[in-house]
Every structure is written in structure tokens, then in C-alpha cells.
């Protein structure tokens, strides 16, 4: 990731000198002062280290050792003090470590100096997450989004002594003008690839624009699963849809959105949508690249925020997810459309479990085990109730010359019944509260029930 932009379509793991099953050392720097995570509020270093090791395993690195390194004052040149660099250097040599993962943002200079001192590959948290996304992306759009994020990351990390990109690119080296420094050439080459990538992404999105339009027209409500990575979203997706989506105990097992049409016990059909999980310190480059995908998911009629209730940092993970949603400008909009799902209760000791079930009753949440199915019936009942509440049926009497209003109802609602009579039609339609308000305001009509009530009041 921190090497050159690659000439092939997949700029990830293999091109950077990192290989699957490489022996890896994972380090979590715990700073006494200085850099702090934006989202990690209150997380323990142990938990952060465990998560970082999980991320490394997610791309099949062979984690030989993992440790927390206490840093009083980050060194601009090497992050760690010289004693720490030396001690870890000995460990790296002895254990034949091929990759060192540093669970923090490190500067390009720090990275270069550590790689020289340890004679091994060094990668930071953002680089690692980008590697994982690069591995997981299956659709062409997903791959382009990850590549764009990776290029933006690389561009921000160019330093003067970097590898000469144009040589790796296999070109003739005459593209740079006289006097153009290597840094400028490198930057220009990345910029050219970014422009090309954005153009390709636009082409893909143009095609997908039709999909999005069509999806909006799918005559079923969409219920989307969101949550921290490895919270059990895919397991729940499989439980509810009866399908075999990959549900691995793995960070970021799902990247490209997956959807299934399912029939609820009340007979209504919905589209269930599974998507990428969130994580603390999600690289800004990735949030930007995946923004459109995330926003599309969040346009769903209902969101299930799936949480790993058994995780010691469950509250921190919740805060991380809410922070990402807020960064997308969606935090406050989601209140009524969100159901909190406390998953993995099968992993909780009986006493703590009772307390959690009590808490779930007080706090609007539902406790489940997607693995055993416990609580899933209750979750389904809540989904049904929420969807009923969000889309109440109402009847409108419209004159035959009110074609625009009739068309609007067909476009925005689910027409359940239509009775044509002389001079007018009566339509029973299921609409969201927002659409009900918009419709009545725009066309100056009221639901028949309300109108009848008014008439009764007017006539005493």
C-alpha cells in the first residue's frame, strides 16, 4: 500500500511485497500524550490491540506476536524511542517477521525509517484496512472505490525519497518535463491515475444509476443491516433470509451490498440488505470513496443496528458506528427508522444476560442470538410493527380530473385498493408519514376518514 501505485487493476496486497501467511508483528502504540483516535473514546489498549491483530488475520497474515507499546512522546523520525526500535528490531530478526503492523497513523518518514531500521515491511492502520477492503471488493464499483481510496492515501504519503514511479510503470521516462522533480513526477502519475479511476467510476455509476432508480421502484420496503464489523450482520441476514451469504467470524467479511427479498409472517414482502461493517478510525479516504454506497444503504425504510452485545467494548463500538453515521450527516435522521439489535446473547453469562434482557426492555432494543435464533421472532414482530407504523394505509377520494394527485400516489405509495365511481375514484394507499404530509399539503386533500370527521363536526 505504501509503495508505488500499481499498473494492474488490483493495487492491493500482492503488489506491495506483502504475502498471505507472512509472519507478522502487530503493535498498538498507547500514547500518553499526542495523537488520539477520533472515534476510539475510552477504548482500552488491550481491546485495540486485539482488534488490530484481528484485522491482520483478516488478510491471512500469520500473527506471530502482538504487543502494546507505551509511548510517552512520539518521535518524529521513528515514532518509538531508539531503545524501543532496537528491542523490537531484535525480536523481528529473531522471529523472522516479514510485516510489522502499527495500529496508528504513522508519517511516511516514520514508516521509511522503521522499514530501514527493521529491514522489514511496515504498514499502518489505514494501510491495513485499505488492504482488507481491496481483498474483499468483488464488484467493479467496489474495486474502483477501494483503488481510489488507496491512491488518495498514497498521494498524501509521497516523500522525496520515494521509489521512482515512472520506472516501475515501465514507461520510457520522458514524460516529465525538464527540471520536474521526482516528487512532482510521482504526484503527477498518481493524479493521472486518480483522474482515470474517477472516470471509470463515473461510467460504472452511470450504469448503476439505472439500478438505483429501479431499486427505488422495487415495490417493497428495504430493511438494511448496519453495525460494527463482525457484529454478526451476515449471520442475522442468513437467519432472516434463509440464504447462504458468507458469514465468517472475520472482520469485513462483507463488503459489497447483498440483498434478498423475504416474506414476513404477516405476508408483507421486504428487501433485506446486508452491507459493509464499520470500524473505529475508518480511513477518511474510504468513507469518501464509499459515501454513495453507504448513503444508498441508509436510504432504507428501516435500519437494524446490529451490535455484538457480548463484546467488552460494545458501547465504544456503538459510538463508532454512530460517529460514522453522523459523519455522513445521517445521525439525527435515523431515530425513528432505527432498531437496535443486541446480538450474540448466547455468548453472555446467564446473570449478565438477564440484566441485558431487562435493559433491552427499558431501552428500545431487542436482544437476540442470530446463531441460535433466540429473540429473532420478536425482532421480526418489531420489524413488522415498525413498517406498519411507518406506512399507514389511508383512503383518498379524488376527482377524475385530479390525475396528477392520482399519479403521485402511485409513484410514492403502495395502492392497495381502487374503486372507480361516477366523477371520482377512491384509493386506499399505504404511505410513509412524510409522504402523507407532502401529498396532503401539495394537493390540498385530506384522507376520507379525516374528511368525514370534519364533516360530522361541521354539521354538529
Amino acid at each position, binding site marked *: 500500500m505504501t509503495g508505488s501505485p500499481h499498473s494492474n487493476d488490483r493495487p492491493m496486497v500482492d503488489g506491495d511485497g506483502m504475502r498471505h501467511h507472512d509472519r507478522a508483528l502487530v503493535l498498538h502504540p498507547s500514547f500518553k500524550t499526542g495523537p488520539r483516535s477520533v472515534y476510539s473514546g475510552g477504548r482500552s489498549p488491550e481491546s485495540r490491540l486485539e482488534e488490530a491483530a484481528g484485522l491482520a488475520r483478516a488478510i491471512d497474515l500469520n500473527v506471530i506476536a502482538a504487543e502494546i507499546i507505551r509511548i510517552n512522546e512520539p518521535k518524529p523520525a521513528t515514532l518509538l524511542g531508539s531503545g524501543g526500535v532496537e528491542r523490537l528490531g531484535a525480536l523481528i530478526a529473531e522471529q523472522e517477521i516479514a510485516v510489522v503492523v502499527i495500529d496508528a497513523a504513522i508519517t511516511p518518514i516514520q514508516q521509511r525509517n522503521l522499514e530501514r531500521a527493521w529491514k522489514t515491511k511496515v504498514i499502518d492502520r489505514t494501510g491495513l484496512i485499505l488492504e482488507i477492503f481491496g481483498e474483499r471488493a468483488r464488484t467493479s464499483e467496489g474495486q474502483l472505490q477501494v483503488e481510489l481510496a488507496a491512491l488518495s492515501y498514497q498521494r498524501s504519503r509521497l516523500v522525496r525519497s520515494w521509489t521512482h514511479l515512472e520506472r516501475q510503470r515501465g514507461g520510457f521516462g520522458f514524460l516529465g518535463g525538464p527540471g520536474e522533480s521526482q516528487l512532482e513526477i510521482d504526484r503527477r502519475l498518481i493524479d493521472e491515475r486518480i483522474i482515470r479511476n474517477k472516470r471509470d467510476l463515473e461510467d460504472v455509476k452511470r450504469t448503476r444509476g439505472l439500478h438505483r432508480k429501479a431499486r427505488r*421502484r422495487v415495490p417493497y420496503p428495504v430493511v438494511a443491516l448496519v453495525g460494527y464489523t463482525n457484529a454478526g450482520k451476515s449471520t442475522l441476514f442468513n437467519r432472516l433470509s434463509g440464504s447462504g451469504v458468507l458469514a465468517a467470524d472475520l472482520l469485513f467479511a462483507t463488503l459489497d451490498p447483498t440483498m434478498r427479498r423475504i416474506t414476513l409472517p404477516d405476508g408483507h414482502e421486504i428487501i433485506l440488505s446486508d452491507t459493509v461493517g464499520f470500524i473505529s478510525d475508518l480511513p477518511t479516504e474510504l468513507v469518501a470513496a464509499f459515501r454513495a454506497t453507504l448513503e444508498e444503504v441508509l436510504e432504507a425504510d428501516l435500519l437494524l443496528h446490529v451490535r455484538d452485545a457480548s463484546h467488552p467494548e460494545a458501547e465504544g463500538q456503538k459510538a463508532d458506528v454512530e460517529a460514522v453515521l453522523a459523519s455522513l450527516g445521517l445521525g439525527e435522521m435515523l431515530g425513528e427508522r432505527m432498531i437496535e439489535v443486541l446480538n450474540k446473547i448466547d455468548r453472555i453469562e446467564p446473570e449478565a444476560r438477564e440484566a441485558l434482557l431487562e435493559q433491552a426492555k427499558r431501552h428500545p432494543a431487542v436482544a437476540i442470538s442470530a446463531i441460535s435464533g433466540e429473540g429473532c421472532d420478536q425482532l421480526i414482530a418489531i420489524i413488522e410493527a415498525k413498517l406498519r407504523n411507518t406506512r399507514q394505509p389511508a383512503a383518498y377520494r379524488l376527482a*377524475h380530473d385530479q390525475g396528477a394527485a392520482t399519479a403521485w400516489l402511485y409513484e410514492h405509495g403502495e395502492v392497495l385498493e381502487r374503486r372507480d365511481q361516477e366523477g371520482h375514484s377512491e384509493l386506499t394507499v399505504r404511505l410513509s408519514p412524510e409522504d402523507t404530509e407532502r401529498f396532503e399539503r401539495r394537493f390540498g386533500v385530506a384522507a376520507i376518514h379525516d374528511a368525514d370527521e370534519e364533516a360530522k363536526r361541521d354539521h354538529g
Partner: protein
Amino acid sequence: MAEVAVPTREEIVALLQAVLDGTTSRTAAAEWASEVQEEIEELDHDAVEPKMWHLLRLAASLDVKSGDAYLHDEATIRDWIEGRG
């Protein structure tokens, strides 16, 4: 109010069958269904029965993808053809 050519159920079923047979692509079928919907919305909505409207909306989502696959598989399209949509 201008006239709009509202497709019959038979026409939509023929389109769905063509998708199953591979003689029409999902994208082409979905585009056609979307365009027809738009025309109907603009011109004469009263001409379409709710069940037909529902079928048209389903047809317009023929090309919606789920990961690498399509949201609506072939068995689902057969269900629509047989009136179980």
C-alpha cells in the same frame, strides 16, 4: 388527457419470458418498464390497474444487483409470470 399505450399483462409476461429465454437482457427489459412507468405517470395514470402497476414496477427492477448476482432470480421471475408476484 393524452393517450398512453398501456402494456397488457400478456405483453409484460412476454417480456419476462424473453428475459428468461435470454432473448432480451435484464437491463433492456428494466429500462423499457421504467420508461413505460414514466410515461404513464406523466400522461394518464388512471389507465393502469394496481396489480399491473405492481408488475411493471417489478419488471423495472429486473436489473437490480445484489453483490455479483441479481436480486430477482429466475425462479422469482417465473413466479411473476404465473401471477405470484
